[in-house]
């Protein structure tokens, strides 16, 4: 009851904390905001050279856009992935980084991970906006419907990121290993997800020593659905698979609930543990 009223009155604080996060991130760096774009560009360059050129990965055909460019195929899934990873990692560092704020002032603590996700979301929207312009230049399609669908997908990724951020940020205060563990986990996870390679390269492969198809295993990973849906709406210009949408939404809201519950149970002693 009180928390609901609190959340309402905290909306302004959330936007303030988000702004603070954004402003302080690139303060005193010469290129400032440009860094938030240069990082994914450098990533794209590396992946394009390694996977697109050296290993000859090609986007599968399909959809009304007739796009064939690997770099764009990559970016459609890589940018949402980066957004998710940034949301979680900066939430996790955020509670400890703002220890003084927690120890000396009171406000709903959930706002700290939320503002980390908010700041990452702002950067992500800018990146996606630019990517969209490039896609529209290269492809021969235009569909407002699927662009709006992309916004829904971004919202779902935010929910997913917020859930993971809440969960791991508060656990990290009690077990500082989480942060290091997550660093490695994300590295493994991105390769367990068809981001830098198309899922089709796994077609016909089985798990070693079994008859289980590799693609089936891949489908369990919610980020696989996320990547394929973003590619559907942005790269191919078509509708996302409704079952994939449902599956990912279940994961996102499920994790958010789990995150809120765990955060709520553990936040009481934050000021002591920090």
């Amino acid at each position, binding site marked *: 009851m009180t928390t609901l009223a609190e959340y309402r009155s905290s909306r302004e604080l959330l936007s*303030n904390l988000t702004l603070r996060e954004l402003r302080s991130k690139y303060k005193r760096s010469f290129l400032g905001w440009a860094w938030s774009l240069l990082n994914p560009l450098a990533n794209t360059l590396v992946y394009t050279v390694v996977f697109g050129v050296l290993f000859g990965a090609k986007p599968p055909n399909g959809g009304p856009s007739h796009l064939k460019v690997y770099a764009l195929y990559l970016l459609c899934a890589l940018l949402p992935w980066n957004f998710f990873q940034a949301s979680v990692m900066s939430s996790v560092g955020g509670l400890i980084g703002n220890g003084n704020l927690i120890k000396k002032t009171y406000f709903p603590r959930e706002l700290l991970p939320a503002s980390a996700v908010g700041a990452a979301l702002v950067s992500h929207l800018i990146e996606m906006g630019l990517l969209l312009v490039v896609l529209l230049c290269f492809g021969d399609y235009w569909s407002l419907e699927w662009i709006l669908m992309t916004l829904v997908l971004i919202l779902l990724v935010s929910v997913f990121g917020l859930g993971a951020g809440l969960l791991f940020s508060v656990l990290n205060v009690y077990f500082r*290993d989480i942060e290091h563990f997550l660093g490695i986990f994300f590295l493994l996870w991105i390769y367990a997800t068809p981001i830098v390679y198309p899922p089709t390269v796994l077609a016909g492969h089985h798990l070693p020593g079994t008859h289980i198809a590799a693609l089936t295993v891949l489908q369990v990973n919610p980020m696989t659905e996320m990547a394929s849906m973003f590619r559907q709406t942005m790269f191919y210009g078509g509708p996302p698979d409704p079952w994939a949408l449902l599956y990912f939404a279940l994961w996102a809201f499920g994790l958010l609930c789990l995150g809120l519950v765990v955060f709520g149970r553990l936040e009481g002693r934050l000021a002591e543990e920090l």
Partner: protein
Amino acid sequence: MADTAVLAEHVSKKFRLMKERNNSLKAAIMRGRRVVAEDFWAVRDVSFEVPTGETFGLIGENGSGKSTMLKCLTRILRPETGRIEVRGKVSSLLELGSGFHPELSGRENVFLNGAILGLSQKELRRRFDTIVDYAGIGQFIDEPVKNYSSGMYVRLGFSVAINVDPEVLLVDEVLAVGDEGFQRKCNEKFADMKAEGRTIILVSHAMSSVQNMCDRVAWFEHGQLRELGNTREVIEHYTGSVDVERGVDDSGHPRWGSGEARVNGVELLGGDGLPVDRLTSGSPATVRLRYEMHEPIAQPVFACYVTTVNGQPVSAPNTRASGCVPDKLDGSGHVDIHLDEVRLLPGTYELTPVISDITMMKVFDHRQNVLRFDVERGATGEEWGVTTLSPRWEIVPEG
């Protein structure tokens, strides 16, 4: 009940003292379900009620639980048992400027800090000029706050917190920081707020300000409420108990502090190094403080407050201001304050020696007015005021 601003009922707060502080998964798994933590009750079964408009003081020695209680009231800490109710808009001053981000400008920080204290952006924009004026920051408002002097930092933090227009203000030792001018401003502001009928809860070691400001006082001891009532009575009992418990000051002067280091005597020496019982204006003299450390103390600061018999502050020489702070001190010895000339004008003065840590916030020993002494007429013929500037006059007629 309708006019109760703050209510605490049977509040207890427990801290876990980890035998080995090791926040890693490995440690958690290794020790399994065995509890290595030791419980420490910082606040135990404390109840009180503060009516609207009252200024309520929390006093007690270091570690007595009064700051923990205040943090429970601000909701930073969550008590294990008991109920806390605070009615109306709360603003807290636990550490001035604690929400500031060093890289952001004063302006950005005012908006952020104001939002944390619950002020809407519209309200903040309306009050922005008042806040900046009150803090006296001027054109520095668009500079990153890391470039601020500590005084500016503190003033801006204070200015935001009080311009939130809280109905209940929770304050922890804020009066101890800042220069004289800032402290006066704080006191004036608190007096205004009190007059406006706002509720103030104050944690302080400065008995004089507690005495001046508070209507009622709660005295905490070992996490429990020892006494609650009329300010003057409780303070008398408190300072009395600190004396009795230490069992040293036999002359009846108030004495407090945590006791790891103690001032065991104050002597006046004349220019020849021999003990005297009065000083002569304009002549050399030495004030000698005899100390005893019961354990090695890192960076102790010695101070010697000089006031007139009426309590008017004159000067407070201290080793921190003079840049004479030893890294560590143990055992006993003495500290000499050499004066090339006593600049006090004839009259009667009192000395209050204090040993504290480097922040001068944690007081090891404070002996209020332990020595009263007279200053005799000497070289200077001045009479007005308490001190002489040792002027050198020159009259130059022109034309």
